[in-house]
């Protein structure tokens, strides 16, 4: 059963992801992206990462994708020009890299390190234990992430606000 569910999600993810880049109409691209996000979230649920699944839907499907759609609709992209001419080169390199990865995997085997033992995950619930770790062990990276958001915010103001340069 678990294998079947995984195969379903994996197949849909691969198909939807290919559609994102293959479909000509950007709106359809964005919508296939939405399908893909939902199935990735489903994959997280099967891995018992409920928190990640929720975040995946709220942040990616909810916020980021809506942003994409807004941009696509505002810019009203109709042209179907192709700017890139690297198709053959990319295909060649892609095939080479894929063969390399497959060969490496087949010849050496692909072992996954022992995950950290289940710890409180089962007892206190997923979200709670993430919060616990985030505010204790990983407090420092968490604070850096907040600094990054601060920089991005000020940067957006500096680069887009009208009249701050001219007023000098």
């Amino acid at each position, binding site marked *: 059963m678990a294998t079947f569910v995984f195969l379903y999600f994996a197949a849909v993810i691969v198909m939807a992801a290919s559609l994102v880049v293959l479909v000509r109409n950007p709106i359809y691209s964005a919508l296939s992206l939405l399908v893909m996000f939902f199935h990735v979230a489903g994959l997280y649920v099967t891995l018992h990462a409920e928190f990640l699944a929720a975040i995946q839907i709220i942040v990616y499907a909810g916020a980021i994708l809506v942003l994409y759609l807004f941009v696509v609709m505002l810019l009203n992209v109709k042209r179907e020009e192709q700017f890139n001419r690297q198709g053959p080169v990319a295909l060649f390199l892609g095939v080479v890299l894929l063969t390399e*990865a497959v060969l*490496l*995997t087949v*010849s*050496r*085997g*692909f*072992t*996954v*390190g*022992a*995950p*950290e033992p289940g710890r409180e995950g089962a007892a206190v619930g997923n979200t709670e234990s993430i919060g616990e770790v985030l*505010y*204790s*062990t*990983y*407090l*420092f*990276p968490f604070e*850096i*992430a907040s*600094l*990054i958001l*601060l*920089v*991005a915010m*000020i*940067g957006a103001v*500096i*680069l887009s606000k009208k009249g*701050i*340069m001219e007023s*000098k």
Partner: protein
Amino acid sequence: MMIPLADLVTILPELIVVSAACLLLVLDPITPSNKKDLLAWMSVATLGVCFVVTAGSMGDRVFAFSDLVVVDGYASFWKLLLYVVSAMTILLSIGYLKEERIDLAEFYGFVLLSLTGMMIMVSGADLLVIYLGIELMSISLYIMAGFKRFEAKSIESSAKYFILGAFSSGLLLYGISLIFGATGSTRLVEIAAAVDARGLDDSMILIALMLVIVGFGFKVAAVPFHMWTPDVYQGAPTSVTAFMAVASKAASFGAFLRVMLEGFGGMKPNWSGLILGVCILTLILGNLVAIVQTNVKRMLAYSSIAHAGYALIGLVVAGWVGTEAGVSAKGVSSMMLYLAVYSFMTLGAFSIVAILRRGGEEGEDLDDFTGLAKRHKGAAFLMLLFMVSLAGIPPTAGFIGKFYLFMAAVNAGLTWLAVVGLIFAAVSAFYYLRVVMVMYMREPSPDQEGETRLALSPTAFVVLALAAAGVILFGLYPWPLVSLTATAALP
């Protein structure tokens, strides 16, 4: 939950810089516009305080925040260098930003925040922390590159840097996630233990290692991950270019070296050959393409690529199989020395480009340097000094840096690599000395539209004096720096 006080004391310099940056951003709107220079001076003073704090605690190796952060001599060395470089950038910017009419005090805030990212990078003991440090540094730099937002070149520089930078961050992050999958941790110490336990042939770690090298290769602008460098360096405001070429490169090398030696130290046979290839490619391409450049800023961009190639020699020596511990530590320390002297000479050269102006624009074309010695003797002489040093001719610091690097390579049995480096140093002399030739041997052409002039502010003068002093002093009397890098090097 309480944060232990000891942890906060360990990251005191970072806290000071962040607080100063936030204070600056708050003070900016309430400072009258004729007193904005005070904010720049405040930033410089902050860096002075940090310098004293870091120098005072140098030497001991302390972990903090559940072993995610490490402060040791190695991290302190890079931090000291970064303070100096950032302070020089700020001093250079005071006059330059006014000249370019982009004198926003937020600029100094971004310098400080970017510096915070760099400090986090060099003292990160965990890949996650190092990654976040890189992001903090890069995002600040993307914004600073686009500061001349009414100029298409600057916007192009910012956008290119952002898109390619985000892409390379993605690769680095992919590598980190594979490492986490393979070893169950992102801490360098635990990665090293897992690498030892699982041996060299684990394909997942190998792929991850490759991705990490690509990610860092982008940040230090090594060939073949250098494509962004010329356009970004040329389009960004010159003081930002200097900051990117010097500070971000030094910090990236600092973090790169720590990750390779402390995290993947057990896999030296796997990566030293790879780095060797990147190093040679970088030397060849950086130096050869620099020859055909007619824009000095672009030429300096390729020169900074080439110098990344020289610095990588240090990493190759540190990772070369069969070298004794003493020799590989020499590789590390000579690379640190090289980047330190590189900082002074490159900052100096970019400062000259920043203050040389024709009409309302920067004099960044080689033509603008024609006959400079006739009109501005001092500036021409300083440019001569920096060019000679970049080419690695004694008695300048550039020679000392190359000398120690090549010596380290010879000691490790890589004599041929030292010879390759030497050949390309000779090639590089061609394009550096061409600038000198143009300045001294040619008459200023009469049909030049608009005379070039020097926009030399007192603070820019201080920067030039510091850079020149560094180039001469470390060229004639390098021992303090040599012994400092020797004690601070990672084993």
